[in-house]
């Protein structure tokens, strides 16, 4: 029997606020254990949480970027469970009345465009961090992360393959980083993904039993884990078994998913409205204000680049992969007025240098103005395209502007027609036999003269100028 995978993703993204969601403790990553704690995030009795306005603003940003409907009123609920990383015995989350619903994002897949629905986005607090002692039967708890703001983004079960899951995740990651509300660091856990995977006979309406996959901290691992899980479930079903509804952890080293131990009981969170937090009302004026502050989104940018700069869809895709790279490229275009050539230099040499050193474009030693200046030097005939390759490398290494490098290395292309003509006349004078051959119709000899000219000028002459002059002079 042929099976169809049904996949939905749940994403937790830490928001780039300065403080936690319900108290004034710093939300910064990497501080000494428990230095960012206070009675509120420690869950001391009698304290009152107060919502950070910026968390709501950031949630609205993502909701708008993913075409969600924003509900006028939402409220917070307590999700009750016991775990040492949760000092209150409940996580403050949102349940029955989420702030944003019914959104979508669009993917470009082999067969064309596909929309993946977004069920809901809501706000909640993160839990603390647990570390396990390898030798003793104890665990250590750091509550710095407790109360760091998160948004959870739940997709519809619209995803049909591991590749689509990875593509959805990439698009969502790109969007959340673009709108500037999350740093997107998967390794440090500021962007986390769980996947729900089930199989059903092709053509069936009813969903099969699903498993929930956790512990995948890269795009690649999400794809591998989903791929593995599809195959595993297929094997179970084909051999007459039943898929157990369970949480499974991805084991990166072994390349398999394993059932999670310890949480034998089905989740029973007993959600109820949190009496400590009043409802949140989001009016049109607030939404409009945030809409006005949203940057251009990746897909819009891509289309504009193709339209305004006449570059290919592939090039536009590469150049808009991050907001910083797109801004860099646009600055080079603005200063050089050469969108196509700028695209080639940014995507070719500049990105290659950066990738070799695993650097971000924000750390690029070549300022957009310098790259634009270099493009102008090529356009003006001061240096050749071949020289430019050397210049751009020196620019990257030294951070110096191109004019300085050209001067230092004596790279200036000879564009002085009179001087060049004198050199060419000398060459012609010294090689009467070749001149004879050329004039007799042996056009191949032309290459010989070009070679001699390049040699005489140490490669500094403008090749186009050599060609033009030589043709004229050899014609006799």
């Amino acid at each position, binding site marked *: 029997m042929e099976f169809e995978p049904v996949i939905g993703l749940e994403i937790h993204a830490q928001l780039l*606020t*300065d*403080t936690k969601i319900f*108290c*004034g*403790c*710093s939300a910064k990553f990497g501080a*000494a*254990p*428990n*230095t*960012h*704690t*206070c*009675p509120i995030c*420690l869950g001391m009795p009698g304290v009152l949480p*107060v*919502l*950070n*306005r*910026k968390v*709501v603003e950031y949630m609205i940003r993502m909701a708008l970027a993913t075409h969600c409907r924003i509900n006028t*009123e939402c*409220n917070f609920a307590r999700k*009750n469970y*016991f*775990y*040492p990383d949760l000092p209150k015995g409940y996580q403050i989350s949102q349940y029955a009345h989420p702030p944003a619903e019914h959104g979508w994002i669009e993917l470009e897949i082999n067969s064309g465009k596909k929309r993946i629905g977004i069920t809901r986005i809501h706000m909640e607090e993160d839990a603390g961090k*647990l*570390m*396990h*002692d390898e030798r*003793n*039967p*104890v*665990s*250590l*708890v*750091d*509550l710095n992360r407790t109360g760091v703001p998160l948004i959870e983004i739940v997709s519809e079960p619209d995803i049909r393959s591991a590749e689509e899951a990875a593509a959805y995740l990439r698009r969502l990651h790109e969007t959340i980083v673009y709108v500037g509300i999350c740093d997107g660091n998967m390794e440090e856990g500021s962007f986390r993904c769980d996947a729900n995977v089930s199989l059903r006979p092709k053509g069936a309406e009813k969903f099969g039993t699903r498993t929930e996959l956790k512990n995948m901290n890269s795009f690649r691992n999400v794809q591998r884990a989903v791929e593995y899980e599809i195959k595993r479930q297929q094997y179970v079903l084909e051999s007459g078994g039943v898929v157990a509804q369970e949480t499974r*952890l991805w084991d990166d080293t072994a390349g398999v998913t394993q059932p*999670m*131990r*310890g949480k034998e009981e089905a989740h*029973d969170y*007993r959600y109820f*409205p949190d*009496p400590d*937090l*009043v*409802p*949140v*009302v989001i009016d049109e004026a607030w939404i409009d204000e945030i809409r006005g502050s949203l940057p251009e989104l990746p897909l819009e940018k891509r289309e504009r680049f193709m339209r305004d700069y006449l570059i290919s869809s592939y090039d536009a895709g590469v150049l808009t992969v991050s907001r910083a790279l797109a801004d860099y490229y646009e600055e080079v275009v603005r200063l050089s007025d050469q969108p196509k050539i700028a695209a080639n230099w940014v995507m070719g040499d500049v990105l290659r240098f950066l990738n070799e050193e695993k650097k971000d474009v924000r750390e690029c030693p070549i300022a957009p103005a310098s790259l634009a200046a270099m493009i102008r030097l090529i356009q003006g005939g001061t240096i050749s395209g071949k020289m430019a390759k050397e210049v751009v490398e020196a620019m990257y290494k030294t951070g110096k502007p191109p004019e300085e490098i050209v001067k230092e290395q004596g790279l200036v292309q000879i564009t002085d027609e009179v001087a060049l003509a004198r050199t060419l006349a000398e060459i012609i004078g010294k090689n009467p036999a070749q001149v004879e051959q050329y004039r007799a119709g042996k056009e191949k000899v032309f290459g010989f003269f070009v070679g001699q000219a390049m040699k005489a000028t140490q490669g500094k002459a403008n090749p186009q100028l050599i060609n033009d002059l030589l043709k004229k002079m050899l014609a006799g």
Partner: protein
Amino acid sequence: MEKMRISKEEVAHVAHLARLEFGAEEVEKFTTQLNDILLYMDKLGEVDTVGVEPVTHAIARKNAFRDDKVGVSLPPEVSLANAPGGRGGCFLVPKVIE
């Protein structure tokens, strides 16, 4: 006894969720008490609420926000002061298996 709103099994289940341990006698006692409370709450059902929007809070206030400004956190030794155990600035708890 009048109609039962909550069974002994439910009481035992909720006790487990709350990590509380009760003897059979206590389960019996709490079941009776909780039923009494819930039956009393049924009085609320006698109120005519047609056309009244449900609310989650007793006060009418909405949108209580704070600005995203870093305040003062506790020194870690104060945060850990009431903990039964600590090490390296962390709370020490019995081993948690994942």
